[in-house]
């Protein structure tokens, strides 16, 4: 098969195909960027949610957990933890979160350990708001069940 392809033809496929792919991807990106605010409820990003996202980052939470399936695979998925641990109720979830964060690291020998991050009550609240916001993102019905 390849005998019939000359170097020049291969070169044209590379430049033509590469450029075509880039243009398609750029076009799709433009559309996606316009749709994401609606799909993710951008208008619901309060200051507290934004602060929560920053806390998520500067404590490297993604180094153990996944969020919407991305991250490390050492600790549970947190994109839907609001539904799993808070039964989709804000007060329940926030109560759970402050108890959970304060209890780390759990004194269970052999169990994977979550460090103590010494977050203030307000910071835990921000983190909870961020996770509540995340749980409402339109993610094509993922994950398959509540266990994440």
């Amino acid at each position, binding site marked *: 098969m*390849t005998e019939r392809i000359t170097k020049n033809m291969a070169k044209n496929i590379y430049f033509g195909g590469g450029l075509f*792919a880039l243009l398609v991807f750029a076009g799709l990106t433009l559309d*996606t960027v316009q749709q994401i605010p609606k799909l993710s409820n951008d208008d619901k990003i309060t200051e507290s949610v934004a602060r929560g996202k920053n806390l998520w980052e*500067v404590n490297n939470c993604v*180094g153990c957990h996944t969020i919407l399936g991305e991250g490390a695979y050492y600790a549970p998925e947190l994109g839907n933890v609001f539904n799993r641990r808070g039964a989709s109720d804000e007060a329940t979830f926030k109560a759970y979160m402050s108890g959970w964060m304060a209890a780390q690291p759990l004194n269970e020998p052999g169990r994977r350990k979550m460090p103590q991050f010494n977050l203030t009550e307000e910071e835990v609240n921000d983190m909870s708001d961020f996770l509540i916001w995340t749980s409402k993102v339109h993610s094509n019905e993922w994950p398959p069940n509540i266990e994440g």
Partner: protein
Amino acid sequence: MKYTSQMVAKQYFIFALILLAGEVLFGLIIGTQYIAGDFLFPEIPFNVARMVHTNLLIVLILFGFMGATYYLIPEEAETELWSPKLANALFWIFAAAGVLTILGYLFVPYATLAEITGNELLPTMGREFLEQPTITKVGIVVVVLGFILNVAMTVLKGRKTVISIVLLTGLLGLAVFFLFAFYLPENLIMDKFFWWYVVHLWVEATWELILGAILAFVLIKVTGVDREHIDKWLYLIIAMTLISGIVGTGHHFFYMGAPSYWLWIGSIASAVEPLPFFLMILFAFGMAKQRKIQHDNEIALLWAKGTAVMAFLGAGVLGFIHTLAPVNFYTHGTQLTASHGHLSFYGAYIMIIFTIISYAMPIMRGRLHGNSEKAQKVETKAFWMMNVGMLGIAIVLFIAGYMQIMMQRWATDGSAMSFMDTQAEISTVYMVRLLFGLLFLSGLFTYFYSFFVKEDSN
């Protein structure tokens, strides 16, 4: 070695190999933490060790690419490197920045590291693979720009071959897409979307151009096959890479908040993604078969063929298996991803670095025909130990991923097990993974040993 300035590559190769040893060591640490959660806690928590593991990988690949480039560009351009001084200076800057960053991860809590490096001024930290403090990221940009300047000036003043142009294109792409690392919007979904611009467009687009160019260079050298023929293959491979790989970014946009049309577009484009890797196998084995010379450095050719095969298995096969949207619905974010990640990074990028080192290092050490037979025998042993080790890790993690899906994800009637319970069930499998990791480490030590095997007196 035809040009004395090619010698600057040596330090890059040596440092890349040192970092690789560190990477594997931290891999074993987190592999142990998978079984014994208390291991090294609280001194080195999992997230820290994992960050060291993945960041060392990225930095060592960059060092390997830079070494490969400095070695092959003068020979391709038929002229001395534009500025060996710049290449040496950038080596020390990059090495110092890399070491400082890793020490920062290990000895300063991450939140404190973010604070003292001024993350709030330009927040970029805390995302997978992009954990580096902003100041380190700026340093990476400076180093890469200086590096590209050096390479481009060399190419401009000398012979322009397809290999050097493709390599330069890949390096430019690497630099351009890294700039998205500085974009960190408040909206997590937007953040994720452009995060893939760095991560995916590095490993499944621009880096593949670099890989293709290095592979083509080594194949020309050790097989003596006509350059025209090699060039044609290189174009075909990278054409398929870009056609499938760029839009193939869409396979990451299935379940993270992007529009639903990506389910189709991502699936279709990524179904083509194994093709460039398959072409790479035909390329490497075809050129080996048509070889015009019998190069004494046989192990370099073995690494080249091995790269094509393992990259195809890791990136092509294991990638394809979970890239279709309905499959990915269950596999997304499981150990299956880790399985694919390990074999593809190793098969494509670590092995191409071994390939170029295996070819270039003996020459830089004055052994123009490659290492002695004895040394090559040791290196061949290392080749198999590392390949079997990594293949074992990938297979075992694949099994772990399958078990995870069946126990934790499949049932929708409320009988599914929790994440932590599932992980406990899989722990025996993780033990086997650790054993393969130890095999890999022994392979790596054997490889290092091969550098010190004395040359035969004849």
